[in-house]
């Protein structure tokens, strides 16, 4: 019903005053991927606690603070839990400035499905924000929104989306290699020209058509983190409907950029320097964003602010970023070094060392426990002498005496571990058998990433009452926390490139060009002959070919000579006799016809020398036709293409090869030269 009303009123209202529409947002509370498996088996990702507050609360807080007045939350997996959570939260209170509608369907399989539903139900009236339920941010999007509207006004419906990025150069903590992107943009208009995930690429490839936009300044940026916040126009939803193969945002962006010329839709970007925006897209990001929260990077969203306004969650903030909720008891000799958040009613034993750690509510932690970069959720029991490094421990887990968790371990819900066991790096323990998951929804989720996810389906027996899922491809869980750029692997290709840099580079392409050029010139002349094209036009054509193949003037002349001299061979076959050859080429027919063409290229004395040299070259290759050379020379002389001086100079040139010396001793040629000399003398005599 609401949908119908919206559809009818849309056109009228939109024309009137788009400005006054309340800002809307679409929040997708499902990740459509399995990066948090097996944790997300029991709890949807949006509800996972991050610094003891559900992630969706961060997202809603961000939306509200940036001025969103109406939010549509789309849920699929465990939608009832999300609905329940939201109904209890402050967002559903009557005083909330942000009206939250929850829309659930089991049929959503991707972001595309959600947006198609948005379009079908006609939920959005004007520009809206599109976010995921796991985005943590304090960015003020109003400026980006302003820019977006400005662009939409300037050129109606051309720019459909503005993506928001955060500047974070490589090596930055909140960057995870998994989500590396490379963006090419227009320097002035901030238009995105190319968008690519760069994770597995060694070389970044940009098609040339992106540089044809008429701008003269482009920027290629590898220092951006996609915040997964985008300002979309209602067209975005329509475009998803039109293109039912768009599943993810990636599909959409790529599709739009590729079809930019056809559809005319553009995507722009906004880069924030100071704001914080990140999507908790995997456990590495979970680790990073949690610690950023505790270190107050997301101010004003800090743990003690209790923005979710939940009872009993208010905590105190003391030096070194130590936060304590009410009812925490700390045993004798226990130390909270720095960046620690402890939930309400948690009891910590004696002589514990805790740093960079979040502990949820109602946990019991024994004596002599060392916790570093541990994320411990609610109602967890940890016995004495346990060591935990950089691991996630979910609700209701029991860790027995003497257990050591090395880096990047995950203990999913209700797992019991121990006693006296050491878990290796990257161990994941869960109560769900890996197989049961596979049968159910193998292809169910169309994730934003195509990364596979392989599991070692061994069942570890012994002291654990759970299934062990070894994460072989531990890039997914905790992708090698130290970012290791691979300069070494780059070097190989560099070396090979370097070696051919100088030597082979100029040779091969040039050769081809010259060859092609020669063929083209031949074709041109042939056509000129057939269709009786004037020499002026032939020159024009040859000139344009010259530019097309980037041939120097000298080469043009050489090739021209070669083509003309070989013309009879081409036409009559290579076997023709000298007499035939010369009759074919001589004054009446070809040479005379093309004389203007030659004259255009043969101007300076140097040109004449080059011209003669290439003539010589041609004839050296065809010894049998030497007799014709004289005739050719004679006719070019008569046609005033070459001057006596040039010919004399060429003749006297000390030739390098024996063959060319032989050529110069040719009877006819000698006669011709003699004749020339005499003519010269006589002409001098005249003067």
């Amino acid at each position, binding site marked *: 019903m609401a949908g119908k009303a919206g559809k009818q009123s849309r056109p009228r209202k939109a024309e009137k005053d788009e400005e006054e529409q309340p800002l809307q947002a679409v929040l997708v509370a499902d990740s459509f991927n399995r990066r948090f498996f097996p944790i997300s088996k029991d709890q949807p990702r949006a509800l996972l606690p991050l610094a003891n507050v559900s992630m969706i609360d961060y997202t809603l807080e961000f939306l509200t603070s940036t001025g969103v007045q109406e939010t549509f939350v789309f849920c699929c997996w465990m939608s009832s839990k999300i609905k329940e959570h939201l109904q209890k939260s402050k967002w559903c209170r009557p005083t909330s400035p942000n009206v939250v509608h929850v829309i659930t369907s089991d049929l959503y399989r991707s972001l595309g499905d959600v947006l198609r539903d948005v379009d079908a139900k006609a939920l959005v009236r004007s520009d809206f924000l599109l976010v995921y339920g796991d985005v943590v941010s304090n960015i003020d999007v109003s400026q980006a929104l302003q820019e977006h509207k400005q662009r939409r006004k300037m050129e109606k419906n051309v720019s459909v989306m503005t993506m928001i990025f955060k500047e974070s150069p490589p090596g930055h903590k909140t960057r995870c290699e998994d989500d590396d992107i490379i963006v090419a943009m227009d320097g002035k208009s901030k238009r995105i020209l190319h968008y690519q995930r760069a994770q597995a690429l060694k070389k970044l490839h940009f098609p040339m058509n992106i540089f044809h936009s008429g701008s003269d*300044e482009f920027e290629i940026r590898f220092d951006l983190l996609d915040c997964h916040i985008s300002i979309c126009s209602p067209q975005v939803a329509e475009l998803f409907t039109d293109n039912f193969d768009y599943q993810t945002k990636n599909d959409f962006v790529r599709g739009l950029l590729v079809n930019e010329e056809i559809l005319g839709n553009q995507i722009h970007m906004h880069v924030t320097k100071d704001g914080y925006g990140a999507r908790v897209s995997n456990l590495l990001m979970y680790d990073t964003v949690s610690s950023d929260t505790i270190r107050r990077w997301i101010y004003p969203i800090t743990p003690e602010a209790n923005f979710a306004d939940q009872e009993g969650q208010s905590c105190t903030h003391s030096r070194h970023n130590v936060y304590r909720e009410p009812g925490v008891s700390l045993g004798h000799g226990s130390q909270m070094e720095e960046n620690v958040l402890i939930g309400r009613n948690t009891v910590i034993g004696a002589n514990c060392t805790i740093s960079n750690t979040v502990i949820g509510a109602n946990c019991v932690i024994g004596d002599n426990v060392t916790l570093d970069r541990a994320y411990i959720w609610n109602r967890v029991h940890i016995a004495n002498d346990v060591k935990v490094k950089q691991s996630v421990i979910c609700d209701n887990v029991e860790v027995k005496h003497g257990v050591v968790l090395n880096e990047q371990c995950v203990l999913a819900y209700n797992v019991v571990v121990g006693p006296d066991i050491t878990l290796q790096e990257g161990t994941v323990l869960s109560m769900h058998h890996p197989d049961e998951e596979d049968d159910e929804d193998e292809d169910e989720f169309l994730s934003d990433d195509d990364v596979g996810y392989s599991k070692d389906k061994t069942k570890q027996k012994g002291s654990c009452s759970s299934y062990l899922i070894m994460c072989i491809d531990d890039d997914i869980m905790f992708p090698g926390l130290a970012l290791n750029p691979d300069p070494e692997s780059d070097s190989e290709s*560099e070396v090979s490139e*370097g070696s051919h840099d100088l030597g082979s580079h100029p040779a091969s392409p040039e050769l081809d060009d010259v060859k092609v050029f020669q063929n083209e010139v031949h074709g041109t002349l042939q056509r000129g002959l057939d269709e009786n094209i004037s020499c002026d036009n032939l020159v024009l054509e040859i000139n344009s070919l010259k530019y097309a193949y980037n041939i120097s003037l000298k080469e043009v002349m050489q090739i021209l000579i070669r083509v003309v001299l070989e013309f009879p061979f081409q036409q009559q076959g290579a076997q023709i006799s000298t007499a035939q050859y010369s009759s074919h080429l001589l004054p009446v027919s070809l040479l005379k016809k093309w004389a203007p063409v030659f004259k255009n290229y043969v101007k300076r004395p140097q040109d004449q020398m080059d011209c003669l040299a290439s003539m010589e070259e041609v004839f050296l290759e065809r010894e049998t036709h030497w007799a014709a050379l004289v005739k050719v020379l004679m006719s070019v002389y008569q046609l005033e293409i070459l001057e006596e001086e040039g010919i004399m100079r060429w003749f006297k040139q000390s030739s390098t090869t024996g063959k060319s010396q032989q050529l110069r001793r040719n009877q006819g040629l000698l006669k011709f030269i003699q004749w020339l000399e005499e003519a010269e003398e006589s002409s001098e005599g005249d003067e």
Partner: protein
Amino acid sequence: MELQAVLMAAGGGSRMMDLTYNTPKPLLPVGNRPLIWYPLNLLERVGFEEVIVITTKEVQKALSTDQRLKTDVKMRLDVVCIQEEADMGTADALRHIQQKIKTDILVVSCDLITDVALHEVVDLFRAHNATLSMLMSKVHEFTETVPGQKGKKKAGEQRDFVGVDVTGKRLLFMANEADLEEGLVLRKSIMRKHPRMLIKTGLLDAHLYCLKRSVVDFLVHNKSVTSIRGELVPFLVRKQFSKSLNSQNATEDTEKNQKQQDAHHNFELLSTSKDEALLQLARERSCWNDHRGDMSEAYHGGKLRCYVHIMEEGMCYRVNTLAAYIEANRVVPKLFEDPPIHPSAVVSERSLVGSDSIIGPSCQISDKTSIKRSNVGTSSIIKEKVKITNSIIMNGVTIEEGCNIQGSVICNNAMIGRGADMKYCLVGSGQRIEPEGENGVAASTDPLSPPPPHPFNFSTSPPPTFLSSLSSWTRLFGHNL
């Protein structure tokens, strides 16, 4: 001596053959001075006392006889001649004079006219201990109509893609559009080091380079490199990001490869000069690095660095095309405060010479003549009732009475007959245009619209000499006389 200046003045000016047919490019008059004066002046202004000039015999002769140039240029010119026929590239020329090169060098092309603060380029070179630093400028749009050129300027010329880092100084990438058919490819490792790369097109390479001495040694070892701009610079830019080849296993044993490796090896060795150790130490002790985001050492350990100074404002022309030549002539007089009319010129009081025009030495300008926005070269004679606008008259030209010349270029020693009317024409040197009635009047269509295909229409049949100016563009030339 920190830098030795090398002036490349042996180019033939192949892109403006019409002008350079009889006058070598360095001697073309621009604002009544030979073109070569401008780079020389640029060097002199910043205090160079000596410059190596690589040029041809012809130019050398002219240099030694040109009195004005002698008085204008105080620097010692060390002129090295190369054979015109040898077809030497700029890198070949450097190789040719390598004996003379003792320090790092500053290479300038003879067709550069600029008011750049040269220290900007040299400072980059010094501050970063760079291997190469060069000068670029925004391309100027030429507004003037080019004589004898058909239609607008050729569109779709190949653009140069220049990639610089976020400071706009470090040169990361350089390629011509022609070589990028497959698309632009960058290695991720470069992006990792310089995550923000600005790709600029529409830049003019001023052909002014500061080069380390080791580069000259490298050239001596690598004879295949012939041109600085065409081969050496792109090579250096690429080389910045490749690993040193010393560690490579020498088993790749084709002879050529080996040879090249040796060359690289040499290059690598030579680029570490004697005070390198000290610099290294300084860098280790300092907390400075040239990038943000991580704490790795400055320049990411690269030894070879290329920088570029991009002029945002100011003037920078390379006089290598007819259009640039005309534009330079129009703009240059404003830069140098010479008296617009040379004292030795004889200008009739009853003539009108605009303040935006310059008149060269020993010119004669007769009565009732009007000259606007034009340059008139040395010893030219302009008779009565001549009207000249927007034109360039070179040296020793005679213009008979009653001519109307607009937007044209008239080369040395040409003779324009009585009553000629020319618009957007190019008259070759030594060319004679016979007086009205005998040889024809140039009539042209509306000059404001893009130049018509044939701005020159002769009312009578043109004499045979004109026929032989073969170019498809209408020009008046005597090349084949």
